[in-house]
């Protein structure tokens, strides 16, 4: 297995650009890691065959970009909105709104090297792959008191591996609504790393829509570092990937910040979708509210692993984690696991998990009003998804994701 990784590393172009040093780090880690292994707890449930395929894909090329991407499904950009498309150019040139600017190379060097204490990168396969092969970085800084909004669209080219990376810094008291959309295409793989630094009192509402199709795969990590009094809210939706793994990691640097993580994964056919979250409180009075939902249809598989770390210095932490799941086919599977590591003694940590089917009483209530059983099931599924989708930044409505989800489930 290691040799496959080595072969892949060998054929990569030599390190280059602003991320050259990161490439060296990533390659070194991968050399030691090899491919993920079944016996490691974090990969135990993963379909590793599908992972092997990813390293066989050639890297996406910028000169292929225009004709290998299907832009038809992209909704128009809202009137005063800004969309940045992560294509395969090294520099993403766009007009930015006042209050958002590109980080200079010096800024980048300073910020990106602050390695994220909650990731042990030498041990992290997804991050290492991204670092090893990616030379493109979108680096933005948001300042000022006015709320900004932004859409970042990350398409994939067919039959290629598409790495990308975002560095987003919110200055003191800055506010941003970010909608990040990742789209998979036939036999592609997408690997996105977004690194977010929230300074004191800043607020980020982060919507993440990950829609795959036709045997595409996704590896995406969100690494968030929160300073005190900052607020981070994530609503993440995964749907339609042959295999996907989303790893949000939040690090409350000095505690006393608010984190809200909502996740929704909807799998059908033989898909395997996974969320592995980690919230690390590194100081007192931190808050976490987490809700993870999954719907598994056909012969698909949804996985959720929710780690929360409350070390001794994180007294008065208030954390809750709820995992609510719907199995809508007998052949589908859902695995959900909380992983609480609590050392501090004066804390509130609640967690719970349920796996159920569509409720018979709810279905009967709808049917007793003349709604046929298919339509009743659809209404219930929509309602189930809406609890998360309703929290996405308004700009997400244009993507009509709920209709697509229901269409795919009814196939």
């Amino acid at each position, binding site marked *: 297995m290691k040799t496959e990784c080595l072969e892949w590393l060998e054929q990569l172009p030599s390190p280059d650009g602003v991320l050259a040093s990161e490439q060296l780090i990533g390659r070194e880690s991968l050399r030691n890691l090899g491919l993920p292994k079944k016996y490691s707890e974090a990969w135990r449930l993963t379909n590793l065959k599908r992972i092997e395929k990813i390293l066989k894909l050639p890297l996406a090329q910028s000169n292929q970009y225009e004709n290998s991407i299907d832009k038809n499904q992209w909704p128009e950009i809202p009137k005063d909105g800004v969309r940045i498309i992560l294509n395969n150019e090294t520099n993403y040139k766009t007009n930015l709104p006042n209050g958002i600017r590109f980080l200079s190379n010096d800024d980048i060097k300073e910020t990106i090297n602050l390695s994220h204490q909650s990731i042990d990168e030498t041990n992290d396969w997804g991050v290492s792959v991204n670092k090893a092969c990616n030379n493109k970085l979108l680096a933005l800084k948001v300042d000022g008191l006015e709320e900004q909004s932004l859409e970042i669209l990350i398409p994939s080219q067919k039959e290629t591996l598409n790495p990308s990376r975002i560095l987003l810094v919110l200055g003191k008291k800055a506010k941003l609504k970010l909608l990040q959309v990742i789209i998979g295409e036939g036999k592609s793989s997408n690997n996105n790393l977004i690194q977010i630094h929230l300074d004191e009192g800043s607020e980020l509402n982060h919507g993440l829509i990950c829609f795959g199709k036709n045997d595409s795969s996704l590896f995406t990590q969100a690494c968030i570092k929160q300073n005190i009094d900052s607020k981070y809210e994530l609503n993440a939706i995964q749907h339609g990937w042959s295999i996907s793994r989303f790893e949000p990691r939040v690090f409350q640097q000095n505690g006393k910040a608010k984190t809200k993580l909502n996740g929704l994964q909807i799998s059908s056919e033989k898909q395997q979708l996974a969320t592995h979250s980690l919230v690390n409180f590194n100081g007192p009075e931190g808050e976490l509210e987490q809700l993870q939902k999954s719907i598994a249809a056909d012969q698909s598989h949804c996985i959720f692993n929710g780690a929360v770390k409350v070390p001794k210095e994180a007294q008065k932490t208030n954390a809750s984690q709820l995992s609510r799941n719907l199995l809508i086919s007998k052949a589908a599977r859902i695995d959900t696991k909380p992983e609480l590591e609590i050392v501090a003694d004066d804390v509130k940590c609640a967690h719970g998990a349920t796996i159920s089917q569509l409720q*018979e009483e709810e279905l*009967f*209530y709808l049917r007793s*009003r*003349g*709604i046929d059983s298919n339509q009743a099931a659809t209404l219930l599924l929509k309602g189930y998804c*809406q609890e998360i989708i309703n929290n996405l930044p308004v700009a997400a409505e244009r993507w009509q994701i709920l209709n697509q989800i229901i269409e795919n489930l009814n196939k």
Partner: protein
Amino acid sequence: MLKSETKLILEVCDLHANVEDQPILNGVNLQVYAGEIHAIMGRNGSGKSTLSKVIAGHPAYKITGGTIKFEDNNLLDLDPEERARLGVFLGFQYPIEIPGVSNLEFLRVSTNARREYEKKEELDTFEFEDFVQEKLKIVKMDPAFLNRSVNEGFSGGEKKRNEILQMALLEPKLAILDETDSGLDIDALRVVAAGVNKLATPNTATILITHYQRLLNEITPNYVHVMANGKILKTAGKELALQLEKSGYDWIEQISSNKEENQ
């Protein structure tokens, strides 16, 4: 009353039903004609809700004998949604909360399902809003409830009003209201009763399941039935309700067990 001239809406014959092999209904007989209001009373656990759910088609109950005719249809052959479209309406004793599903959307989809069967035109979202505003007045309900999820976080009384609102929208031929009065204060009870009276017509029928005489002060039934052990034990006029309120159910059960012993 000259029954031969009015139309038979519901005919339940020797109905037996089980839940998980446990018999709950043990031979119910009931005939309801157009224009009538029937009250069904009885102790908790006597099978009143079961009877109403079996008529509406709840899949948890297994029918082990008997028939239910609704006009010319064998109800037991039909799915719950088909029964509803024909005009059978059940006001639930415990209306279900459905998080995430908008009440307005739910009301519109169900109203249109019934209208389609009645060959009335479908109402689009705008037309439906006008239609529903009219009906809201009947139950004196705050329009804000339309924008919430179905019954989610509604108080007991609000849920019951929402049931009557659904009845007003669906314009059923047969309305079965299962303890719509319980948990209501007297003002809310009057609103609900006024709604029921307003919606009752010579061509429709109503079955009220209730514990209390006080609802029957507001809505006058033609017949009062007493249920016990999954059967109707006694049927009489509205004076029976007063008698039950005074003397309880014991005497009826006494009479009927004596009868069975004599047989």
